[in-house]
C-alpha cells in the first residue's frame, strides 16, 4: 500500500466521518441517537470497503472489455465461443478461487511459498469478504488472458478445465510469493522487496505466460500460415467491438490499480493519473514504433499498445511520478509492436496479441517499477529483485501451464476438429450463432437442428 500524505483533500477525507457523526448527532431526536457502535474507525472501514467493492465491480467490468475485444478480433463464426469463454472464466473462476485459490494465495504463509488457510472462506469477520471479492476479480482477469490468444480453434471444455486450474492453482501460487501473507507469514518474493503493486507480473505476466503455453500446445489456426511459412492476416469481424472493449478495459483499469490500495486513500489520485498516463503513452509508443518500422498505423496495434501501457504501469503506479509513468507506458506500447511481429515470425498465432501485451507489458512494467521508484530511483539491487520476480513468474507460470495443457490434451483434446473450425465454434460448441440474421447464408456450417 502506498504511503498516504497529508494534503487538504486527505484532511477532508479524514474529517469526513467525524463530520458525519456530528451531523447525525445534531439531526437525531431524543428517540434517534447516533449508533453507539459507530466510530471513526468503523466509518473509515466502511468507506474503505465501499471503495474496494466499487473498484472490484470495475475490475469485473473488465471481463466485458475482454469479451468485446476478443470477440471483435475473432471471425463472426466464433463470436459466441469467445464470449462464452470469457463469461465462464469468471463463473468457474469464482468458485475455484473461493474454494482453493484465495487460501493458496493469501492464507497463512509460514514457508513463504504457499498459503495454507482461508480455503472456502466461511464464517469469518465480515471485513474479510471484501478482500476475497476484489481478489476474485483479479484471478478471473488473469485466467481470461488465455482465451483471446487461443480463440477460434480450441475446444471449449478443455479450455475451461485449463482456466479453472489457472484460477485455482497457477495464479494463486505465484500470487502467494509476491503478495501472500494476509493471515500470517510472508511470500518469499515479498520478503525480498519485490514491487508489483497491482499485478503487472502477478496477474498479467502470469496470464500471458499461460497464454503462450496454450498457444504452443494448441497450434495456429487452420491456414494462418501458408505452406511456405508466409503469415496470412485474418481480420477480426468487428473492429468497433474491439475499440469498445479497449475503452472498457481502460475504465476498468482505474479500479484495478486504484482499488489495489485496499482503502479509500488520497493516494488513489496519483495511481489513477499514472494509470491513465500509462495507457495513453502506450498507444503513442505503439504508433511511434509502427511509424519507425514503416508499418501502417493500425487501430488494433494502437489499442494493444495502450493496453500494454496499462499493463506496464500496473506494477509501479503507486511509486512513480507521472513522467515516468508516461515513459513506462510508451516503452510498453512500443515493445508490444515488436513482440507481436516476433511472434508471427515464430509462427505463433496469437489472435488478440495477448502475449505481446500481457507478457511484454508485464515484464517491462515490473522492471520499470524497480527502476523508476520515486523514492529509490535506478537502484540496481531493486532491479535485480524485480528481474528475479519476472524469472520466477516465467518458470512457474509457463512451466506449470505447459504441463497442465499437456495433461489436459491427454484427456480432452485441446484442439477443435477441422470440421469444427470449418463450421465455426459458435455452431459446433454452443449451437448458437452470434449474428443469425447476417449469418443466414453462412455456409461453412451444417443445418442447425433443434
Amino acid at each position, binding site marked *: 500500500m502506498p504511503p498516504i500524505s497529508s494534503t487538504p483533500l486527505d484532511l477532508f477525507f479524514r474529517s469526513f466521518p467525524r463530520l458525519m457523526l456530528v451531523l447525525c448527532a445534531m439531526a437525531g431526536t431524543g428517540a434517534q441517537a447516533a449508533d453507539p457502535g459507530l466510530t471513526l474507525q468503523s466509518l473509515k472501514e466502511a468507506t474503505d470497503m465501499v471503495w474496494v467493492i466499487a473498484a472490484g465491480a470495475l475490475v469485473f467490468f473488465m471481463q466485458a472489455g475482454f469479451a468485446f475485444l476478443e470477440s471483435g478480433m475473432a*471471425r463472426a*463464426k466464433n463470436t459466441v465461443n469467445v464470449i462464452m469463454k470469457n463469461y465462464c472464466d469468471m463463473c468457474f473462476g469464482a468458485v475455484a478461487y473461493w474454494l482453493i485459490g484465495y487460501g493458496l494465495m493469501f492464507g497463512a504463509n509460514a514457508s513463504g511459498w504457499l498459503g495454507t488457510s482461508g480455503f472456502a472462506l466461511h464464517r469469518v469477520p465480515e471485513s474479510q469478504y471484501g478482500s476475497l471479492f476484489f481478489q476474485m476479480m483479479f484471478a478471473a482477469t488473469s485466467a481470461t488472458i488465455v482465451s483471446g490468444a487461443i480463440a477460434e480453434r480450441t475446444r471449449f471444455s478443455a479450455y475451461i478445465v485449463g482456466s479453472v486450474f489457472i484460477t485455482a492453482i497457477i495464479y494463486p501460487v505465484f500470487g502467494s510469493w509476491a503478495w501472500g501473507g494476509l493471515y500470517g507469514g510472508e511470500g518469499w518474493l515479498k520478503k525480498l522487496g519485490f514491487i508489483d503493486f497491482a499485478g503487472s507480473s502477478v496477474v498479467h505476466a502470469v496470464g500471458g505466460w499461460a497464454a503462450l503455453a496454450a498457444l504452443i500446445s494448441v497450434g495456429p*489456426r*487452420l*491456414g*494462418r500460415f*501458408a*505452406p511456405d511459412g508466409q503469415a*496470412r492476416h*485474418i*481480420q477480426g469481424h468487428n473492429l468497433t467491438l474491439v475499440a469498445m472493449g479497449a475503452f472498457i478495459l481502460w475504465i476498468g483499469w482505474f479500479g484495478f490499480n486504484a482499488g489495489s490500495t485496499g482503502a479509500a486513500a488520497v493516494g488513489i489520485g496519483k495511481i489513477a493519473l499514472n494509470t491513465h498516463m500509462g495507457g495513453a503513452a502506450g498507444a503513442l509508443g505503439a504508433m511511434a514504433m509502427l511509424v519507425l518500422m514503416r508499418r501502417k498505423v493500425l487501430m488494433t496495434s494502437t489499442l494493444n499498445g495502450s493496453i500494454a501501457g496499462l499493463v506496464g504501469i500496473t506494477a509501479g503506479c503507486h511509486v512513480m511520478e507521472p513522467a515516468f509513468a508516461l515513459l513506462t507506458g510508451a516503452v510498453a506500447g512500443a515493445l508490444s509492436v515488436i513482440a507481436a511481429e516476433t511472434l508471427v515470425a515464430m509462427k505463433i498465432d496469437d489472435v488478440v496479441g495477448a502475449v505481446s501485451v500481457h507478457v511484454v507489458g508485464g515484464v517491462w512494467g515490473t522492471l520499470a517499477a524497480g527502476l523508476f521508484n520515486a523514492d529509490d530511483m535506478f537502484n540496481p539491487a531493486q532491479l535485480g529483485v524485480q528481474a528475479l520476480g519476472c524469472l520466477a513468474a516465467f518458470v512457474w507460470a509457463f512451466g506449470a501451464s505447459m504441463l497442465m495443457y499437456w495433461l489436459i490434451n491427454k484427456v480432452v483434446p485441446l484442439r477443435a476438429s*477441422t*470440421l469444427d*473450425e*470449418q*463450421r465455426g465454434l459458435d455452431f459446433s460448441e454452443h449451437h448458437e450463432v452470434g449474428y443469425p440474421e447476417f449469418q443466414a*447464408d*453462412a*455456409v*461453412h*456450417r*451444417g*443445418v442447425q437442428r433443434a
Partner: protein
Amino acid sequence: MEAVTWALTAYLEPPQARQAAALWQRPASTDASSVLVGLSRYCRQIAQQFDLQGREAELHLRIIRALQAQSRAQPPNDPFARQAVDAPVSSPLESSSATLMQRFLLAIEQHVAQEARPLYSPQRWRQSLIQDGRKVPPVAMQQACDWLWGRTSALHGDWPARGAGTRLINAAYVTMAEWLGPVRADACFTQIVREFEQSRDPALTNIRSYL
C-alpha cells in the same frame, strides 16, 4: 485423344464423346500455358455444341486430369494407390451423393486453380487433398483416390451427409484453407454452396446438409 474421349464419357454418350474428342487439337506448342489456353477454348466449344453450358470448368479439370493420368503410372504419395486398377472407360455415377461430392470437389479445385495460379497443379492439389483426407473412412477414401488419380472416370460409392461425404468436404476445406488462407477459403466455400443451392440440379441443392 484417348484421354479426352475417356474424360468426356462422364458427360456424353460414347458416340458423342468420340465425336467431341475428334474436335480436340493439341496445340503445336508444348508450353503448359498454350495447352491450357487451347483447352479452355476447346471446352467452350464442346459445351456449346453438346449442350454442356455451365460445366466448362469441370470439363477443363477432367480433361487435364485424364491427360495427366495417361502419362503417369503411379501417383506419388498416394496411400490408397492400388497395384493395378483399370479405369473403366465409362462408369455412371453410382449415387446422387457421389455426383454432389464430385461436383463440389471440382468446384473447389476450380477456385483454387484460379486463385492460387502460380502454385496450383492438379497433382499437387490432389496430393494435398488426400493428405488432408485422413479422417475419411478408408474404403470411401480409396474410391475418392481412384477418381482423383483418374483410375475411374467418376466418383463411385455412397457419400452420406454427416459421414464420409461431410468428412471429404471438410478435407477439401482444410486443403483450400491451407492453399488460399482461411478467409478466402470461407468466401469460396460460401460462393460454391450458394451456387449449388441456386442450381436447378436436384442432386446439388442438398449441399448444406453435408456441411
